[in-house]
């Protein structure tokens, strides 16, 4: 499946490169760019990373959460992920297992360490805030091409001197809190540099900026810092990422109920 997809993508990209560009609609160009971005970020197989989340209210008062993450790339479906909450202390040991499925609802389980209970939970809450932050669950989910339709609306400089594509992305999955996202993607490495989120009334709600990109083993780029600003409430959230590791020995067996219970 992977090979077929990559060959098809390669073929499409080649065709795109050799066919005259005026033959393509902005939608086709958008899909092509999104596909190329996904292509560049495929094949990492598994990874771990630690995340520090700093929540800031309008007055600038901060509170911090710490989460350690592991992810498994799944070909032909959404990725699997396990998140273990370390701070604040009242949620230490709580863990979440997610099998994402593109347009279909994700499968999600929550582990409550105080009573050692694993609960399957509804994944319908896509637009709800993640741990009281400015990130919604859908902002942190597995990135799959079919979750959006795309439209290239421009090309301009962005971020720290990057040359960027400007892409409109329309959510195709149910229960999104957005009418659209506008993403700035750098032309050299196809990395997200900035995303504007528009709420259901189509007003600008949030901006996410990706900072301090590093290249990891296998040529995968990850930003060390995410800055999410809510323009409507004045609140913001920073994610600081540490200890990215793409050379783990994780496999399917590290993403099940037993693994969820023994994480901490």
């Amino acid at each position, binding site marked *: 499946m992977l090979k077929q997809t990559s060959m098809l993508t390669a073929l499409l990209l080649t065709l795109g490169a050799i066919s005259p560009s005026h033959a393509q609609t902005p939608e086709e160009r958008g899909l092509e760019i999104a596909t190329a971005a996904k292509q560049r970020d495929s094949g990492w197989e598994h990874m771990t990373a630690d995340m520090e989340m700093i*929540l800031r*209210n309008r007055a600038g008062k901060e*509170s911090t959460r710490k989460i350690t993450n592991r992810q498994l790339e799944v070909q032909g479906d959404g990725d699997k992920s396990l998140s273990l909450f370390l*701070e*604040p*202390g*009242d*949620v*230490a040991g709580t863990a979440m297992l997610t099998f994402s499925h593109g347009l279909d*609802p994700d*499968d999600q389980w929550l582990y409550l360490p105080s*009573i*050692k*209970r*694993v609960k*399957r*939970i*509804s994944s*319908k*809450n896509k*637009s*709800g*805030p993640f*741990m*009281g932050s400015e990130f919604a669950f859908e902002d942190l989910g597995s990135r799959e091409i079919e979750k959006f339709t795309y439209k290239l609306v421009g090309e301009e400089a962005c971020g720290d001197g990057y040359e960027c594509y400007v892409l409109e992305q329309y959510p195709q999955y149910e229960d999104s*809190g957005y009418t659209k996202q506008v993403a700035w993607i750098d032309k050299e490495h196809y990395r997200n540099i900035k995303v504007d989120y528009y709420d259901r009334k189509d007003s600008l709600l949030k901006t996410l900026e990706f900072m301090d990109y590093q290249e990891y083993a296998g040529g995968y780029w990850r930003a060390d810092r995410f800055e999410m600003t809510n323009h409507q409430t004045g609140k913001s959230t920073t994610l600081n990422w540490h200890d990215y590791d793409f050379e783990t020995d994780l496999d*399917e*067996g590290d993403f*099940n*109920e*037993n693994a969820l219970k*023994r994480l*901490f």
Partner: protein
Amino acid sequence: MRRVAALVALLASAPALALDTGLTVELEARHTIGDPDDPSKIDSDPGIGVEAEFRHRFNDGDSQFNFTPFGRWSSRDEARRHADIRELYLLHVENEWEFLAGASRVFWGKAESNHLVDIVNQTDALEGFDGEDKLGQPMLRVSRSFDSSTATLFVLPGFREREFLDQEDPLALPFPVDNDPLYESSDGNDHVDAALRFSGYRGFLDYGLSWFHGTSRDPDYVPGANGEMRPFYPLIDQFGIDLQLTMEAWLWKLETIRRTFDEEDRDYTAAVGGFEYTIFGLADGAFDLGLLAEYNYDSRDDRGQVALQDDLFLATRFGFTDIASSELLAGVFYDLEDDSRSFRVEGNRRVFGDARLSLELQLFTNVAPGNIAYHLRDSDFIRLALEWFF
């Protein structure tokens, strides 16, 4: 005790022992807001609970050691001055296999109002009124994971007796207990129990099948000396099924058990089933509202013997999306046979950055004579607890 000493010696000799530690300190105060006829009942009972956790990972993370002692000191109810080893185990993972030896806690089941299927651990009856606190159970556990399921075998040596509140405690049983229990098994509390569980998921279905053979965790009471009652622990077999369908915002839940005894006329079936429906992002995303309804059935059909035999549980759950992660669950248990009603509220929120404030309110609004909870009719209480995590 000797075994513990040997284990500690073994661990102390392990090179480069790096322990992860956690400590929870809880200040609690329970106050009776009912008006008991009996003036000897304790009306207010402040106390402190401490749980420490020592964790160590070795063998590249494939092996784990965990030691979680717990202790409670209560100012009035002396029975609640107690300690327990919640966890003391070695765990090892070998590919899809997981092995555990030691004391641990296990939760089985899906429902909210009643945990019928959950049977491995003895309830810590000196702790929460809801019965969700459990004593550490000695066990050998072998588990194998498959693609979307897990099979687990338990060997359970060393029975844990239930402990009982002082008679002066408003939540105590309506009779004095002589805690020198009787056992149906000729091996007494040395009977080795066994359990099997197979659980997994398929699409929107989560399922569990379980079987237990051994000494019941729930005692019967037989007359003893001096007007006291003695706990009697029968031998049982219990087969259980627990199911959950997760369909968008709906969770449909069912648990059912068949418990069999040596005396066949004591065999019974019980079930709890219902739903939880959540409306996400109300009041501009300020909170999620859950609506819960569960029905409890028990074939013994005896409201004087069984708490939830023909009872409806209706509740609302508020999950606030604020920085304090406030939660509130308010529900009513309604006995359809005798109209007895009790209200229960559980809430908590984060305070001082990373401490937790919890509230528990239990009101026995209307308990009919002959109901198993009749002796609690004046035992309404409120409990506040503040926990710090280090």
